[in-house]
């Protein structure tokens, strides 16, 4: 065995046997996936019941496609229908008079009523667009992506956060404990090149990130969560690798500044966690104020998120992710230079 492979093996074994590392890089993010993806996917897949009051030709025209989303009950009593909405039995009551579609909804369930309104607005828009049949199916698809299937949004975001956290913590903890335990010095006294040591650590981090990705996509694709990967999802692999390198560099900076392993993971946390929020890993940034969306561009995680979303679920071409890939790598390069500045072999 060469120095590179034996060092990689030693680090990988150390990682597999570290229960807390396993927890924080795999199970913890998965818990979020179950929480976010599970809660929202329940909401997404259960159909929303609406009441159609009297004749609503618009709904009947497009009822075939709407059947996936809405369960339509019929009634002739407007007052009784409104009462049902108030009580939360149904999401909305819909009636049509001439060309005007009237929707009654309850403010108590804003998310669902908002969704129904969105659906109906599209029905109207399509009707206005003079009824080309293909248009209907296309926009129904869009409805699903934007608001219904939370798992589609949640998976890339949580995955990028998990990878960022795993890489940053792994690098920071290794650097500090190896320095504290003098393994770095011991390695300096063995005929091993610095390249083998760094290379082994990078290799191990990339392997760990790919394991995270495989587990994440595996779980999210379970029928319960129902993640639908787009054709070019494989482009996420180079993105994940680039993200790993960048966040390893962040971890190395944290490890270079910190005096103890606890401080190193604290610093790494302080950097990664707020960044995850501000980069839209947990909550979509679409609804955030404009200044926040602008600010988010200074975070490498934002670009990793963006790239992953584009290729994994938005079905964009692999080429479209290249700018994001380049930006993530550029961040990595700059941070690596800083990491080299603060690197120390020894505590003294």
């Amino acid at each position, binding site marked *: *065995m*060469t*120095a590179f*492979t*034996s*060092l990689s*093996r*030693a*680090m990988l*074994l*150390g990682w597999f*046997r*570290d229960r807390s590392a396993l927890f924080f890089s795999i199970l913890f993010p998965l818990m979020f996936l179950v929480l976010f993806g599970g809660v929202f996917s329940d909401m997404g897949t259960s159909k929303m019941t609406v009441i159609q009051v009297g004749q609503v030709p618009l709904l009947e025209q497009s009822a075939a496609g709407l059947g996936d989303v809405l369960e339509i009950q019929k009634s002739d009593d407007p007052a009784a229908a409104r009462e049902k909405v108030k009580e939360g039995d149904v999401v909305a009551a819909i009636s049509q008079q001439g060309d005007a579609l009237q929707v009654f909804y309850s403010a108590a369930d804003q998310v669902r009523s908002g969704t129904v309104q969105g659906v109906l607005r599209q029905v109207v828009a399509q009707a206005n667009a003079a009824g080309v049949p293909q248009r209907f199916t296309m926009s129904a698809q869009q409805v699903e992506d934007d608001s219904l299937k939370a798992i589609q949004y949640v998976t890339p975001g949580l995955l990028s956060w998990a990878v960022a956290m795993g890489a940053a913590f792994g690098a920071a903890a290794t650097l500090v*404990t190896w320095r504290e*335990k*003098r*393994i770095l*010095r*011991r*390695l*300096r*006294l*063995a*005929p*091993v090149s610095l390249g083998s040591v760094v290379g082994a650590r990078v290799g191990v981090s990339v392997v760990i990130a790919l394991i995270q990705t495989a587990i994440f996509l595996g779980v999210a694709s379970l029928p319960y969560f129902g993640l639908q990967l787009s054709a070019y999802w494989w482009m996420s692999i180079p993105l994940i690798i680039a993200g790993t390198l960048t966040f390893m560099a962040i971890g190395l900076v944290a490890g270079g500044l910190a005096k103890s392993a606890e401080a190193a993971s604290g610093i790494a946390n302080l950097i990664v966690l707020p960044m995850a929020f501000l980069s839209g890993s947990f909550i979509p940034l679409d609804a955030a104020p404009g200044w926040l969306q602008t600010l988010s561009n200074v975070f490498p995680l934002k670009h990793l998120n963006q790239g992953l979303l584009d290729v994994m679920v938005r079905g964009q071409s692999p080429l479209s992710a290249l700018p994001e890939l380049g930006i993530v790598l550029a961040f990595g390069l700059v941070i690596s230079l800083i990491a080299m500045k603060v690197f120390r072999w020894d505590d003294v």
Partner: protein
Amino acid sequence: MGSTIIVNDLRKHYGQVRAVDGVSFSVEEGEFFGILGPNGAGKTTTLEIVEGLREADSGTVEVLGMRPWPRNAKLLTRIGVQLQATSFFERLTAREQIRTFASLYGVAHKKADEMLGQVGLEDKADTPAERLSGGQGQRLSIACALVHDPDIVFLDEPSAALDPQARRNLWDLLRQINDDGRTVVLTTHYMDEAESLCDRVAIMDDGRILELGAPATLVRGLEAVTRISLETGTLTVESAAELAGPGASVDDDGVSVTIGTDDPARVLTALAERNLLTGIQVRGATLEDVFLNLTGREYRA
């Protein structure tokens, strides 16, 4: 037999502190060489410069005819280093540790497993290094330093924090390493360790070597007192003082009466005449006395 290590006028300071202040010595091939001194004497810094971990401010070091600084991979394959802290990879078993270190030197696994047996750790092979006892950890650490069959072995305070039994076991191991023909350089703050193991010892304090030579020579060169102790009650302090004559010191700590004298023959004869030799203890000067004599202060490790 030539010198394997030649150190000449080594200096290293950190800010105002002169950690190493003009140290010169040489170590012969196959020698067991000790650097002895209290904490902060500059032993470890000296050793680290010789190993090539630090750069000296001035002075020269030659190890096996090579300069250790800057990092010299050719030299690294011929020296084995056991560091002060037991530096192991996290969560690996004893066998995995030594195999990892072995492969860094291109040494086969079989050799690594043999080495584990040689330090008596076969039955601990599957134990994580974190769960080894202090003595076992040190032995594993030494095995890792020896796995590539180096010509020179550097040991930095190998017996620190070990219980007496573990220390004795470790000493046996170290003697065996030296008997195999390896040059051993050891730092220690234990006087008895240096006395018991080393062919020659350099006594260091404040970054300087105060004295260098075989432990017995250093002790013999000292006009130090011999301490004779016997059980309290067998002899009163007064009669002991009378018996020892002028210039001797008598001390009773409640357990034993100790007579310190520079004429032990006379005192022992007198005690023999009174038939008081049962349970008697006689201690000659130790390296501690040498240190006291050199620095004028009590040795504290």
